């Protein structure tokens, strides 16, 4: 029984850590720019495919991660150019990102085909660890650490740098900081680039767990939504806590009540919506 709980705690944390790589960019872009970027999980999908292509050409895993991120960031910024004039209009920008999602999905299908692909973990982490009776893939454990490092780096930028101050102020009151003469558009640009980079790099980082196949982005999107609703829009800490919570609740839901697996994820979402609509760490608007 101890094995059962240990495996599900670790599995939930690993899957939650993976979700954070998507949700971090999602919550920053949403919080600052009021753009619901549906294409965020499509960025993740493109990241897996680009990363896999690099691995197949012999590029080492840890080199391929930032390249995949950069490639997706460039793609994201091209999309941002189209999106930017409409960012104040929530519905138009939402519909635009849905359109881009469909285009990215079909482009991925045309370029990489539809066979489900598996992504090999880096060779140093391609083994499983044995802890008593529990066998657990080492890469899943590493995922927890990787995500924590990325979260720490993002918290540092948000708390201790000028850019971070602009982002925090922008989430609270965009008009006021515009009034103070701060170049908010530049912050938008950088945040969108960071969000796309995280999703792209996260694609390859998460690839050994998720694989790459048409429809992967659609599987992840509702989970990313659940994370930011729980965590609170625009809050990085909220996104981190929300990710781990959704990972754990989802995993234990499937393990204990397999017939209700989707339901168990959205129970906390419904509870948060009813009791604390701004999310655990979100600010009241």
């Amino acid at each position, binding site marked *: 029984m101890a094995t059962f709980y240990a*495996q599900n705690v670790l*599995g939930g944390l690993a899957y939650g850590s993976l979700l954070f790589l998507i949700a971090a960019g999602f919550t920053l872009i949403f919080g600052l720019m009021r753009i619901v970027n549906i294409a965020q999980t499509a960025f993740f999908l493109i990241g897996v495919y680009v990363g896999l292509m690099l691995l197949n050409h012999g590029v080492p895993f840890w080199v391929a991660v930032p390249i995949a991120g950069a490639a997706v960031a460039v793609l994201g910024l091209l999309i941002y150019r189209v999106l930017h004039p409409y960012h104040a209009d929530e519905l138009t920008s939402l519909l635009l990102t849905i359109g881009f999602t469909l285009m990215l999905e079909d482009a991925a299908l045309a370029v990489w085909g*539809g066979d489900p692909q*598996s992504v090999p973990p880096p060779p140093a982490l391609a083994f499983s660890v044995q802890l008593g*009776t529990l066998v657990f*893939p080492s890469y899943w454990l590493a995922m927890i650490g990787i995500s924590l490092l990325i979260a720490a780096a993002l918290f540092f930028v948000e708390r201790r740098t000028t850019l971070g101050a602009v982002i925090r102020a922008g989430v609270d009151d965009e008009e006021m900081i515009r009034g103070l003469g701060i170049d908010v558009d530049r912050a938008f640009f950088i945040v969108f680039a960071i969000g796309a980079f995280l999703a792209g790099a996260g694609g390859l980082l998460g690839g050994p767990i998720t694989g790459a*196949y048409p429809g992967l982005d659609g599987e992840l999107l509702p989970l990313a939504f659940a994370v930011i609703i729980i965590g609170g829009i625009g809050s990085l800490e909220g996104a981190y806590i929300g990710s781990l919570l959704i990972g754990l609740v989802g995993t234990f839901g499937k393990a204990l009540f397999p017939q209700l697996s989707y339901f168990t994820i959205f129970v906390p979402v419904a509870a948060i919506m009813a009791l604390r609509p701004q999310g655990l760490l979100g600010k009241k608007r």
Partner: protein
Amino acid sequence: MARVMRYVVTAAVVAVLAMGTGPAARGLAAGATPLKIGLLAPTTGVAAAPGHDMINGWKLWWAQHSTTVAGTAIDTTYYDTGSNPNQALTQARRAVEQDHVNLLIGPYLANEGLAVAPYAEEHQVPLFLPTVSADDLTQRKASQYVIKVAGWSSSQTTHPAGGWAYDKGYRKTVTIGDEYAFAYESVGGFAQTFTEKGGKVTKQLWVPLGTTDFSPYLSQVTAEHPDVVFVCVVGADAVHFLQQWTSFGLKAKVPLLVQETVTDQSSIRTLPPEDVVGIIAFSHYAEGRDDPATQRFIANYANAYHALPSYMAAGFFTAAEWIQLALEQVHGDVADQQAFLNAVRTVSVPDSPFGPQRLDPYGAPVENVYVRQVQRTPARYAGDAKTWNVVLKTYPGVSQFWTYNPAQYLKQPVYSNTFQGIAK
């Protein structure tokens, strides 16, 4: 005047269109007119890869054989179902009502097939199903127009699995299946024959389609300590399952039996051999079967497409041969639809890549079921695939009713998540 003319022209167009969809246009065309075939396959959406395999198999046969059979030209049009039952139905309508095809073949997904089948029956257009395996289409809802030409039924391959597992000495099993009809039927076939022999099913796990994280389910398998695990998942789920079955340490500990989709070429193509070698599946197709017909087919396929063929490719390749044989039998005369369909039902294909195939009175094939195992490919296919499936044992001429009396068998409901045929 111009207005009157326009009215007349419009009326004429409407009349022609209406006649075109009338009874005269239905059924098979007369005389030397071509046999127009509408091939429904998903080339976009989640099932795009199998869709391409289907088309590749079909084209391979016609690249090797003349498309004029006994004086009748065969004219194929391809329709994209988009992996979506609504679009499959729309495309079937387009094929029948606008393009006047005489015959539909495809689609791929069970839900696409279930959407198209009633339409085909209503419009009396034959629908051939080389990949859609839904049990009831040739059982409780059998129709003279819906025929599993070169196809199979979901529980046909898993009925033998139950007895095989019991004879191996396994007594306690846990099953894992995707949460939809195909897996309910596949797992049900195994559960029924396994428990009728005296085995116990201690837990059945149904996972949502599109599951990436199997670890919570695997933790339950470990907790149950089964003698054997039976699994039926499809597509990307199969890839995730196989990877995690190995990395969570179960491959070394628990014997695994699977429905053939799990270790089909379309799933094992991208996986490293250490994740899949040794896994045993129950199937109507095995690309590594040591038989001249199978080996000729896969050599030609590998040559043309640089991959080993999945069962979808083999199904459409064989369906093409089947249609050719039936056309020869009626001397190319497709004007008499019933005569042509009778020929399709009575033809037997002695040396298809699947082995010998013929149809039972319900329109489902009677064919071999293989116990097959994943092994590394021999050197000649090393560039096309890492692993393939070789035959350990053959059950010859298996019916969709296994050894049951059809009339008796049809009295029990179709397998579902609430009915698994488990003997108490």
